[in-house]
């Protein structure tokens, strides 16, 4: 079982991971897979090893906007470690990849007898909460171009890859903009040599320039994603 790909699993002491390992399953999930829907009971925890999951909230009229995203630095559905919980948002695989999963009942049992795991959940939940606040502020005051740059940088960090399999439609839905707007913004960045866009794939060519164009929200939350130290 791969462990180092996910920072939460990697932060667990060997003795704790060995107890968790027999219950972990390794799965590959394609883009668009719904891990859990809003108000559904959380029945599994997903630890991304290489993919990324976006959390969406409904905006009425069938629209959805991303409030946060989770990659190798975190896990989806961790809160079920404290007992049965309903999901606040819809969790959808945005970037396909491999995931380690565990059933919520088994995970809850592990958490109840492992203070280290409990602490990691609390720490990660705090990080997710601070990021959601930052995103709310970002959506209110920053322009589309810098938000797009910030989001792409976060994707690169969370997946550990400069190549992102993303369609313009999914990007538009994620950022709450029209598809045409995203296309025009992405082309402006492409003309400046910052990224290359070909059907369904974005390649970040100049990370430093992308960071220069991103809003300050990227730097504000980036420090939270350093690998955890459980000791």
């Amino acid at each position, binding site marked *: 079982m791969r462990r180092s790909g996910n920072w939460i699993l990697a932060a667990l002491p060997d003795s704790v991971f060995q107890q968790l390992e027999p219950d972990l399953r390794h799965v590959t999930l394609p883009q668009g897979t719904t891990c859990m829907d809003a108000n559904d009971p959380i029945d599994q925890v997903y630890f991304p090893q290489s993919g990324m999951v976006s959390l969406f909230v409904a905006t009425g009229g069938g629209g959805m906007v991303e409030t946060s995203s989770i990659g190798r630095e975190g896990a989806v559905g961790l809160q079920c470690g404290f007992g049965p919980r309903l999901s606040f948002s819809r969790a959808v695989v945005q970037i396909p990849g491999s995931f380690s999963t565990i059933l919520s009942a088994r995970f809850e049992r592990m958490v109840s007898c492992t203070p280290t795991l409990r602490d990691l959940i609390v720490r990660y939940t705090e990080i997710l909460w601070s990021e959601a606040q930052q995103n709310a502020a970002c959506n209110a005051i*920053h322009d*589309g*171009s810098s938000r797009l740059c910030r989001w792409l940088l976060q994707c690169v960090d969370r997946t550990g890859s400069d190549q992102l399999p993303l369609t313009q439609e999914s990007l538009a839905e994620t950022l709450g903009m029209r598809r*045409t*707007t995203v296309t*025009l913004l992405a082309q*402006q960045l*492409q*003309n400046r040599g910052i990224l290359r866009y070909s059907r369904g794939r974005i390649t970040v060519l100049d990370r430093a320039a992308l960071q220069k164009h991103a809003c300050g929200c990227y730097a504000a939350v980036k420090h939270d994603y350093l690998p955890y130290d459980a000791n």
Partner: protein
Amino acid sequence: MPIYTFTLRDGTDGVVDEIGVRLAGQDCAIQYGNGVVRELMKNRELETRSWRLDIYEDHDTGICQIPFAAVDPTLNHLEPRFRTMVEDVSERRRQLSEVIHALNTTVIESRALVARSRGKPYLASRFGRGTIR
């Protein structure tokens, strides 16, 4: 239903949404275009005030041009004649930017052509595009 495509004139070569959107008619296309302009302009009105979005039906027939200054909500407090002045200046500013950009591109291309003709090293591509067209 016709396909509507969009070209953003931002003071450079411009960028094009070649995929386009299938919409019921020109009114819908203009409404959609206005939405795109608002999204591109939001929270950076000053920076984008000189831009313009051109809308085309079935890739070739221009149906509408939306200058950003014309829908900029931060200019709503101005008297109509002052607003018109700002819109005119914004249009001229974009035209000037386009000319300067074209001039720079020509200078870079000319240098490359001269260097190549003399058998010397030259800048072959810039930002993924060939320098010599």
